């Protein structure tokens, strides 16, 4: 199924990032060039939330309206890699939406409460689900997606709750819902600027 979809180009990736950044007044930085990220990596490692190396090499991070990514936007070896940069843009901007809604409480509870961290990440991973549906017309497995929360040092029960939220979210999405604000903004932009990337009928 994936072989039939059109390729993502660097310009589409850059265009969507620019659009989201303008709309949400966010700034994007390359993680390895941001000294503050080394401090955050150390703090998260000490709190037992994230592995230092993986945090720097693989994770994108959002602090308020500052987004740190472990890649150069629009640079990728394949269409799938570039598509992942689009999904990352939407996922991280959903964290900006959460920050706008909950303010500093978002950052505090994200760090200090497993349940809150699971809630915020589940909400952001719903964007991955929504974007995947738009592009491929397939639902990502709720269990598989919820398993990603394991890297955020949440409990087994939190992962179970996340799976259930993502399961019912998948049900709504396949009936045509777009739940997350960042997904809605991105899908509107993609429909207008890169409709060839969408699954037929999405």
């Amino acid at each position, binding site marked *: 199924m994936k072989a039939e979809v059109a390729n993502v180009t660097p310009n589409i990736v850059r265009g969507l990032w620019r659009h989201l950044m303008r709309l949400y007044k966010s700034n994007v930085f390359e993680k390895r060039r941001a000294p503050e990220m080394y401090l955050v990596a150390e703090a998260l490692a000490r709190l037992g939330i994230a592995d230092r190396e993986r945090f720097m090499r693989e994770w994108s991070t959002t602090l308020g309206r500052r987004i740190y990514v472990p890649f150069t936007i629009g640079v990728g070896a394949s269409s799938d890699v570039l598509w992942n940069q689009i999904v990352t843009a939407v996922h991280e901007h959903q964290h900006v939406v959460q920050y706008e809604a909950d303010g500093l409480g978002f950052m505090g509870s994200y760090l200090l*409460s*497993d*349940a*809150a961290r*699971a*809630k915020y990440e589940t909400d952001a991973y719903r964007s991955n689900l929504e974007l995947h549906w738009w592009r491929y017309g397939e*639902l990502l*497995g*709720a*269990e598989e997606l919820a398993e990603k929360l394991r890297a955020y040092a949440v*409990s087994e*029960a*939190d992962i*179970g*709750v996340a*799976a*259930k*939220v993502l*399961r*019912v*979210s*998948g*049900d*709504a999405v396949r*009936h*045509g*819902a*777009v*739940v997350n*604000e960042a997904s*809605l903004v991105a899908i509107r932009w993609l429909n207008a600027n890169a409709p060839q990337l969408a699954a037929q009928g999405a």
Partner: protein
Amino acid sequence: MERRVIGWMYLVALVALVGAIVWVGLTACRPPLLGGVCQVGQMRCQGNVAEICATDRTWIPALDCRAISEHAGRPWVCVALPADAGALDASPFDDEQFTCRPEENVS
């Protein structure tokens, strides 16, 4: 003698008052001790939002049908997950699940 009786009555009244304050404090500032705490993973529809009981035993939104309605420009409603959702992953919990569906599709 009379003074001692009055003293005892005063003490009993004081204990009753303190007890009443403690009881009111315990029952008025949080959900009732029995039946008010949600079970982790339990779901419900509340004000057109599908809510789930998180691991800290608080209700949190799982799916906000009001937001979906706003995004879609047509009404979506909170409903129990129907039997036609069987193709989705199995749930880690056995109890009822709730989702949002377009109002026109709900009988």
